[in-house]
């Protein structure tokens, strides 16, 4: 039986009613992964213990102990640690690194009996918006294989969009879940900063990073989030349950139109306006809003993030683990290991971060950025007293061509314009498909983004499901 186009919900019903086993389901996905991965390069590795995992899940189901994700095949981004498996961050410097422990989210998923199919390709250490910065070749967009799948969680997005997994985990530092979800036609959710423990996820920008799901539906994204969320003593930013707001019913949507006056493709903008119109018909109130400091968000991001990158990636030196390259002396060992082990974009960001933190420049760049960040946070706080949710397009354009922006870092960075503000402020945000636009005769997906206040993650699922309802009519 060929099992495809399944959501968690449909797979759950098939499993729980005994129509299929977890082994059937897993093998069906593995077969497709092996077939289609040559073209897509979504997976860096398909695991060889999938059948054993599925057999354990079948036992749980037989014993009546199945929970939401028991037996559900999931793809994991290569920067999240699964004990005993390679976790390389799609970098040469960690290409031989075998994880010595499970990330917190992996522990949670194991408890559920979810099936880890493999580890997915990504921009090296999650730095990029196209998955072209992987040391192991680019991933292709299943909707048009000449185009990028977004990034940095591009392998996770291509795996779900190409039906090589039902769901996937990604990480989002400046849009790395939402942007690939948008350009691959999926739902991508970045939780409130502190909602999901990052223990066992490779740190990139520690004040920005969050783990979250990529899925085919809002309900699936919510199901995964409910499993992986929760307080964890191993992540000092972890927030208690009491912080999260329940029983919210979002009614008023703020639209910061001043933020999309330039740089957004006309057909993306009209898809967005049509979506807003549908929400209005559904009974939502639409309010024009202004976020005065949001125009600085991208600049703030490209100071704070590289600063944190240069600090976090200092640990990769080939001494205790990883791939060492010998130099003439000890200093030469470090220089060669890091010079050869890191890819071009990683090297560029480390140097940029080193610069903005260096003596004589730290006040003008890093400290000033940190101050402007506070103003952006304040803007969000003020606006969320007036509206429940903010809506924007997720990206200014659909998926671009592989190679189109790789030599123009600023053009690549502009891809993150609508997604970084949520990371800067630490608030939750979700991207949901809002149809397609046409490029060279191909229909390419685009997404709408909803942002809510701290801890109001659930309100994004509510409005997201409403949006799916009106959109699919």
């Amino acid at each position, binding site marked *: 039986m060929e099992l495809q186009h399944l959501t968690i919900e449909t797979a759950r019903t098939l499993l729980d009613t005994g129509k299929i086993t977890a082994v059937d389901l897993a093998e069906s996905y593995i077969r497709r992964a092996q077939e289609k991965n040559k073209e897509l390069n979504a997976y860096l590795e398909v695991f060889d213990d999938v059948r054993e995992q599925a057999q354990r899940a079948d036992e749980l189901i037989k014993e009546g102990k199945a929970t939401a994700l028991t037996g559900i095949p999931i793809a994991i981004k290569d920067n999240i640690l699964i004990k005993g498996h390679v976790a390389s961050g799609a970098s040469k410097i960690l290409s031989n690194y075998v994880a010595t*422990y499970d990330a917190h989210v992996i522990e949670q998923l194991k408890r559920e009996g979810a099936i880890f199919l493999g580890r997915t390709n990504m921009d090296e250490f999650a730095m990029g918006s196209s998955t072209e910065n992987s040391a192991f070749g680019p991933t292709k967009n299943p909707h048009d294989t000449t185009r990028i799948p977004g990034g940095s969680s591009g392998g996770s997005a291509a795996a779900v969009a190409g039906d090589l997994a039902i769901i996937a985990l990604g990480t989002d530092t400046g849009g790395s879940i939402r942007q690939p979800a948008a350009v691959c036609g999926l739902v991508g959710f970045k939780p409130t900063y502190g909602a999901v423990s990052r223990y066992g996820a490779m740190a990139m920008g520690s004040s920005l990073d969050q783990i979250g799901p990529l899925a085919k539906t809002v309900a699936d994204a919510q199901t995964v989030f409910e499993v992986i969320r929760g307080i964890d003593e191993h992540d000092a930013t972890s927030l208690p349950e009491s*912080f999260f707001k329940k029983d919210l019913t979002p009614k008023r949507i703020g639209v910061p139109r001043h933020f999309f006056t330039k740089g957004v493709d006309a057909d993306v903008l009209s898809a967005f306006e049509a979506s807003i119109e549908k929400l209005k018909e559904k009974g939502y109130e639409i309010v024009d809003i202004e976020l005065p400091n949001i125009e600085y968000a991208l600049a703030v991001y490209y100071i704070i993030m590289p600063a944190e990158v240069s600090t976090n990636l200092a640990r990769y030196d080939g001494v205790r683990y990883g791939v060492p390259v010998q130099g003439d002396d000890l200093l030469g060992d470090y*220089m060669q290991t890091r010079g050869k082990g890191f890819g071009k974009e990683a*090297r560029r960001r480390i140097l940029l971060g080193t610069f903005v933190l260096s003596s004589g420049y730290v006040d003008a760049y890093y400290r*000033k950025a940190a101050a*402007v960040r*506070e103003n952006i946070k304040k803007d969000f706080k003020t606006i969320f007293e007036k509206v429940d949710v903010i809506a924007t397009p997720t990206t200014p354009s659909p998926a671009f061509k592989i190679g189109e922006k790789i030599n123009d870092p600023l053009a690549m960075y502009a891809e993150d314009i609508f997604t970084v503000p949520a990371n800067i402020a630490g608030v939750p945000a979700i991207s949901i498909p809002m149809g397609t636009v046409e490029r060279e005769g191909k229909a390419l997906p685009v997404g709408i983004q909803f942002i809510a206040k*701290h801890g109001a993650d659930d309100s994004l699922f509510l409005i997201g499901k409403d949006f799916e309802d009106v959109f699919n009519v």
Partner: protein
Amino acid sequence: MTDVDIKKLALLARIAVDEEEMQELQHDLPEILEFVEKIQQAGGEIIKEVGEHYNIMREDGEPHDTGAFTQDMLSAMPHEKDGYLRVRKIIDQG
């Protein structure tokens, strides 16, 4: 445009950069810096507020049993001998 000493940055960051890339970075980094410098125009009063997050410390004491991770960590080491990490000699007695 801000003058950037790539050689010095590369040494600070412990990253060997070849001549060709040096040229590229000499172009890219000032261009990126020019873009991010727009934050200098950001006005408004800067008030640092206390956020929801604060450092959470564990209790003093042993976090885990001694040796619980030793084998796993040793097996990840590029140069390991008799339970030790081998590093290059750093004292030159020349």
